[in-house]
C-alpha cells in the first residue's frame, strides 16, 4: 500500500465517523399527525375511570399509534415514551371520512383503555391486563368526527396500539397512517 492510500483511507475513516456521529446525534423525526398527552399519576392506577391525581404532564407529536415495542410503551422511531408505571395517555382529535359506512377500530392495550367516537363509547377494558387486541365496530357518516382514546399503564409491561379499517375487510392501518378516504386534523 503506498503513502497516498494510507492517508486517504484514514481520511475516509474519519469522514465516516463524523457522518455516523451526526446521524446518531440527529433527533428522530416523525410527521406530527397526532397529539398524545401523557399524565403521570401520583397514585397507583387500577381502573381507567378512576379519578385522576396527576403530577407531571408531557405531550408528544406522533405519526401513528403503534406504541408496543418489546412489551414497552415505545414508538418504533422515538423510542420509549412516558414512564415505566402509573400514567395515563390520552388522544383527543378529529378526523374526516369521505364515505359513510361501517368501520372498525382495533385497540391493543396493556393495561386498560376506553375509546369514544363522537362522545359515544365504542369499547373499553377497565382494569389492567396483558397486551390484548379488541375489535370495536362502528357505523359512521361521511364528514368530520371526534375521537377520544384514554389509556392507562399500571405496572409491569405496557403498550398501546390503535388500528383502523373499513369493516368490509379493507386494508387496516395504524391510526395516523394514510388510508384512502380518511384524513386527520393535524395536531397543532
Amino acid at each position, binding site marked *: 500500500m503506498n*503513502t497516498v492510500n494510507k*492517508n486517504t483511507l484514514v*481520511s475516509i475513516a*474519519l469522514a465516516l465517523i*463524523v457522518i455516523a*456521529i451526526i446521524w*446518531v*446525534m*440527529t433527533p428522530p423525526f416523525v410527521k406530527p399527525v397526532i397529539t398524545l398527552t401523557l399524565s403521570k399519576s401520583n397514585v397507583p392506577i387500577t381502573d381507567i375511570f378512576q379519578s385522576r391525581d396527576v403530577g407531571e404532564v*408531557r405531550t408528544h407529536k406522533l405519526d401513528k399509534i403503534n406504541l408496543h415495542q418489546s412489551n414497552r410503551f415505545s414508538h418504533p422511531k422515538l423510542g420509549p415514551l412516558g414512564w415505566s408505571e402509573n400514567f395515563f395517555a390520552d388522544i383527543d382529535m378529529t378526523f374526516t371520512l369521505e364515505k359513510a359506512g361501517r368501520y372498525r377500530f382495533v385497540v391493543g392495550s396493556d393495561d386498560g383503555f376506553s375509546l369514544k367516537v363522537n362522545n359515544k363509547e365504542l369499547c373499553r377494558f377497565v382494569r389492567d391486563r396483558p397486551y390484548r387486541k379488541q375489535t370495536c365496530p362502528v357505523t359512521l357518516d361521511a364528514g368530520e368526527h371526534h375521537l377520544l382514546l384514554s389509556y392507562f399503564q399500571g405496572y409491569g409491561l405496557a403498550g398501546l396500539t390503535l388500528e383502523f379499517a373499513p369493516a368490509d375487510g379493507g386494508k387496516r392501518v395504524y391510526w395516523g397512517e394514510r388510508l384512502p378516504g380518511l384524513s386527520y386534523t393535524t395536531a397543532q
Partner: protein
Amino acid sequence: MPKIISYCRRHLYPLLLLIASSAVYLSFYGQPSSLFWDENYHIASAQKYIDGTLYMEPHPPLGKLLMAASEALLGTNSDSDKTSFNNTDYITGDDTPEAMSYYGFRLPSTLLMALSVLFFFGIIKRITGNAHIAAAFTCLMIFDNALVIHSRAAMLEGIQLFFILAAIFYAVRIITNAAIQGIALYHYALLGVLIGLAVSVKVNALVLLLLFVMVYGVDQWQAIKQWQFTVLIKRLMITVPCGVLPLIAIFCAVFYVHIGLGSSIATHSTYKASPAYLQHVRQDNTWSPAAFAVGLKDNWRYMSEYSDGVPRLDICKPGENGSSAIGWPLGTKTINYRWSKDTVDGITRVRYHNLLPNPVVWFSVFIGIILSLGLILSRFVYGHPVKDQPLFYWICGFTTLYGSYMIAILHIERVMYLYHYLVPLLFGMINLALISTYIFKTEILAKSRHFYTNLFIYILLVFAVFIIFAPFSYSWELTEAGFNARNWFGYWRLELVR
C-alpha cells in the same frame, strides 16, 4: 523561524497541554457537592488521619494520606464538625456537615491527574522524538470522559495514574539515555521508588514491575544477544535488590505513617486489630518500630480478609455495576455514579454523573492494540522485517503491559468495575501513539501535510466527542431527548432517569 518552531516544540506544547488539562480537570472540581461512588469510603478514611483515628481498609494508604494532607492544608471545612466520620467506614450525606466543601479531599486526584499530562507528553516525545505527535496524542488523555469524571473525585485512580506515568516516564528516560550515560544502579532504585509510590496507592500498579524487565533488557542487551547467562545472572543479583528494596522501603514508609497517625481507637470498630497493636495505640506508642511491626501485620491480614470477602460479579443482580474485563475496551459497563432530577413546565432535566468512555479514544486504543498484536505476530510468526527496530520494541513493551494487566485482571474472581480499565487504557493510549508513528513513519519523515491534517481532524473529533459526552462528566442538565441522543451503544447499559 526555525528557532521559533523549535522553541514552540520544547516549551509551548507542554504549556498549552497543561493549560488544557487544568481547564478540563480543575474547573469547578468541587461539584457535585455531594458524595459519589467510593468517596463515601475514602473521605471517611482520610478524615481519620486528620483526627488521628486508627483504621484499616483494603487499599494501601498513600491516596488517603494525600487527601487528608490536602484537606488539612486547604482547610475548607475547618469550621465544620466532621468527627462523625471517625465512627464509620462509609459516610452518607446525612453524616456530612451542611455546606461541606469537597475541594480539599478531591484536590490530590484532580491536580495530580492534570499535571500527569506532562509525563504523558514526555513519554511519547522521548520515544518518537516528535513533539507534534506527542502533543496530539496527549489530547486523548485530556479529553477522555472516563478519566475526567473519575479523577475529579476523592478517589484513588487519579493519584495512582500520576505515579504510574511518572514511573513510565522515568523508565523511558533511563532507556532513551542509555546509549549516552548507560544504566546505573541508582536508576533501578529511583524507578523502584516511583513504582513503590504507585503501589502504595493501589496494588494493581504491580504490573509496573515489567518496567524493570524492560530497563534490564536494554541494560544487558549485548549479554542477552550472546546468551551470556553468567553475566546476566550476576547483574540480576545486583539489580533486583536495587530496584525492589526501594519499592518495599517506600511501601513500608507509607504504612509507617499510616500506623503512626492512628493514635486513637474508633468507637464502631477495632478492625480486628490484635491485642498487641491495640495496646500500642492505647499507650500512644504508634510511631515505635514495635507498633509498626505488629500494625503492618494486622493491616496486611485485614487487606487479605477484606479482599476474600468481596462478592463476585453477578450480572443477574439488579443494579449490578460490576462488569467483566472482556467488555472494558469497548466501554462495558458504564456506571451511574449519581443523578439529580428537576422538572420545570413538564420538562424533566436530569443531571447525570456517569462513568462512560470517550468512544473515539477507547475504540482507537482497542484498534491500536489489535494493530500492535498484528505487527508483533507478523514479526515473530511470519518473520516480516521491522522498519524501525527501537519503535517496534517499544510497541512490544506497551502491548505487553496492556496484555499483562488484562490477563491478570481476568484471573481475579471478585467483582471489578470499568474504572479498573483506566490503567491499561493509558498503556493503550501510549501504544496508539507509537503504532501510529510506526505505520506512518515515512509520512512523518516526509512531513506529509495529508498525515498532519488527518491527525488534526482526529484530535478535533476526540475533542468534539468529549464535549458531546461532557454532560455526563460534569453533571450538566440533560433532557430525555438529550440522553437518548447520547445513548450510542446498548452494551454501555446507560440508565435513563425518568
